[in-house]
């Protein structure tokens, strides 16, 4: 269904939602965009051409969360009570929502679903705002997403000037807009042309034909060393990435808790074994893992790239390693070396 929501009415809509749920929306704090609790009167950052700095995946997979608590009396680990109240994430960008849909394939699986992810996912409604003017670092259309992608969303807003066109995709999304006037053909037409224009504004960042096969073939290439020379091996490109999901499990004995923390294949100790052996001993193997996971292994798992083109890793890499340029270089690297043991 499609509705028309005049911009003047947004505040009232959010106010109504906030009575039932926690509502989070992008706002500026510390000089950058963050998802913060919505309160009447706050200034929203909906026109910023890009995303929040910290990815909203943290709403579903917090960077640190208590998995289990330790019962000293029984000498046993127990599942903590997880109270998650309904939440609406308003203003999430389509690339970030697409990433949530990707992460569902990891955590909301048939076999061994992750109960923490599912509990949060069920309580979380994602209302997107499409991107009329994607940033120069965005490349969603190159990786199978788009500035108005629906994946993972319950509804999406398109800014059509005086009003938003609201399109709903799920029952719970639909329920949030009951009572709004339905969009007129004119609004929808306007939205379509804005959407098309936004999409047309993005040019292919790298060639994706055969990308997976090609990467598989250059697994042993020296190209990875070239990237690794400047790479710091920090956590930025993966922690800020909306699709990265790696985690560590550690015991915090002083708090009687078993905790999971985000982890990343870019860290040396991630793959370091007790014997001292490290299958990825240098930044070259680690950089390769990051790119191979996103652009090869994900294809085998979900038949999609594990990158939604949000551009965060491009913007925040402290040594300017631009994943788009890396993939262009990868594509230009001849595949004479075929891996085999």
């Amino acid at each position, binding site marked *: 269904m499609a509705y028309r929501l005049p911009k003047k009415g947004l505040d009232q809509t959010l106010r109504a939602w906030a009575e039932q749920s926690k509502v989070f929306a992008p706002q500026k704090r510390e000089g950058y965009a963050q998802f913060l609790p919505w309160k009447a009167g706050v200034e929203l950052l909906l026109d910023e051409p890009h995303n929040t700095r910290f990815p909203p995946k943290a709403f579903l997979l917090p960077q640190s969360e208590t*998995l*289990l608590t*330790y019962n000293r009396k029984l*000498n*046993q*680990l*127990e*599942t*903590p*009570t*997880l109270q998650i109240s309904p939440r609406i994430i308003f203003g999430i960008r389509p690339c970030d929502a697409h990433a949530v849909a990707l992460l569902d394939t*990891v*955590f909301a699986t048939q076999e*061994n*679903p*992750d*109960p*923490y992810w*599912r*509990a949060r996912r069920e309580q979380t409604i994602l209302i997107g705002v499409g991107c009329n003017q994607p940033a120069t670092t965005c490349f969603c259309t190159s990786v199978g997403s788009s500035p108005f992608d629906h994946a993972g969303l319950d509804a999406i807003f398109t800014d059509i000037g005086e009003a938003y066109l609201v399109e709903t995709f799920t029952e719970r999304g639909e329920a949030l807009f009951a009572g709004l006037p339905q969009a007129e053909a004119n609004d929808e037409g306007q939205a379509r042309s804005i959407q098309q224009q936004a999409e047309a504004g993005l040019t292919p960042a790298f060639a994706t034909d055969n990308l997976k096969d090609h990467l*598989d073939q250059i*697994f*042993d290439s020296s190209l990875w060393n070239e990237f690794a020379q400047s790479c710091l091996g920090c956590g930025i490109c993966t922690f800020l990435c909306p699709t990265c*999901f*790696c*985690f*560590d*499990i*550690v*015991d915090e*004995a002083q708090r009687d808790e*078993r905790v*999971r923390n985000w*982890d990343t*294949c870019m860290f040396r100790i*991630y*793959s*370091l*074994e*007790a*014997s001292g*052996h490290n*299958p*990825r001993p240098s930044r070259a*193997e680690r950089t390769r*893992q990051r790119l*191979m*996971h996103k652009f*090869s*292994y994900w294809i*085998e*798992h979900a038949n999609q790239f594990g990158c939604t083109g949000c551009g965060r890793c491009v913007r925040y890499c402290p040594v300017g390693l631009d994943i788009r340029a890396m993939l262009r270089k990868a594509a230009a690297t001849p595949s004479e070396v075929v*891996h*085999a*043991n």
Partner: protein
Amino acid sequence: MLTNTYQNPYLPTPMHVLRAYYESTDRTLKTLELSFDNPQDRLAFFRKFNPGQFCQLSVFGKGESPLGVASAAWEGDFVRFTVQKMGAVTKALHRLQPGDPIGMRGPLGNGFPLSKWKGKNLVIIGGGCAFSTLYALTKHVQHPQNRPDFGQIIVIYGARSSGLCMYKHDIQSWYQREDMEVHQAIDVPEEDWMHHVGYVPDVVKEVAPSPVNAVAVVCGPPIMTKFTLPALVQLGFPPDAIFTSLEKRMKCGLGKCGRCNLGSKYICKDGPVFSLAELNALPADI
């Protein structure tokens, strides 16, 4: 409560140490036999268990470690592990005494594809503490009910020294069995050692098991595996009849934490047992 809605795959099953004893004279290897606190957990475990699988053993405060199951289901209502002392968790495991509580998650991973091996000769090749899951396999096939499913059985097991040989008394008794052939080896000669001396790959070449209607299973330290696999290929074993069990650092054991991937496969979920044919199609990232 979460548990009301979903099973929590991160929650260890409560267990107790039934028996704990050193396996090696240098006390670096210790065997733990664990019993279940709750009968329903025991049933659930043995419904799923298959030799070749592993569990996450958990000592609260230190963490979890993946360890291969070293017992067969018919041996009793316990689960056996042999633990090499390495870092934080394995040291804590070594301190455990009979009666101590412990957490266990599992069985995890695929285990050996026993149903595909029906009717075949088995060549079981192990080295070091990685022999633990092969011990489980051997115990499994030795059971009178399972034995007819397999043809000839050859076990080749190497350790650095006799003091490091695991499951000594039991393996000694295997020499008396007529339904299998046993070859033990140590790296350098010792007095009173009556078996092979040399590295496992060389012993394999010496024993030269026939590849006809046979599968070979290799578990050992990386260096042993590296040289044994080509030796088997040379003997004529096709890549899809050679199996090995892989190790990588692990956390979740469920294919979620991302840590143990080898190409697009997660060793914890899609493995740890792979055929050489499968491995040949995966990148060398181990």
